């Protein structure tokens, strides 16, 4: 099928518009999570996979390092939020 144009979009009825808005909101949230996963993998791979690459699997140490790296990043971003909130309240 050819790509949609503006004229086609005008054919959407109210019910489908509401549905689409919901769908797009969900997708953009998913895209934000995915962007974080990409940037975290980038950062954590550098920290966790430091030895010579001998096989395609993550070994146990690398695997737990990737998980810890992700968790600690999460801690840090919560801390940032908390600090900023404190600053606003003082």
């Amino acid at each position, binding site marked *: *099928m050819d*790509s*949609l144009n503006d004229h*086609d*979009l005008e*054919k*959407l*009825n109210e*019910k*489908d518009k509401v*549905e*689409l808005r919901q*769908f*797009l909101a969900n*997708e953009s949230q*998913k*895209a934000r*999570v*995915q*962007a*974080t*996963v*990409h940037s*975290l*993998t*980038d950062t*954590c*791979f*550098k920290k*966790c*996979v430091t030895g010579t*690459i*001998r*096989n*395609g*699997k*993550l070994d146990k140490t*690398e*695997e737990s390092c*990737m*998980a810890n*790296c*992700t*968790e600690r990043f*999460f801690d840090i971003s*919560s801390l940032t939020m908390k600090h900023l909130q404190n600053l606003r309240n003082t």
Partner: protein
Amino acid sequence: MDSETVKTEVIREVREQYAMDNARQLIEKINKHCFERCVPKPGASLSGGEQTCFTQCMEKYMSAWNQVSTTYINRLQRER
């Protein structure tokens, strides 16, 4: 085209775009990391060793991505 068809088509296009974008980001990172790792001194051609390293590095990076994705999403759900 009726409303239903337009809606379905929008959804299809958005999903396709999303998948393409995801693949593009992953490929970009794999190339960056694994090139740096496996081809420290680029020669006249890719050696067998460099190619093996690259394939393994690529698999490793994808496992690492999956690990981060699972951990991150679990944490998001726990914090909610």
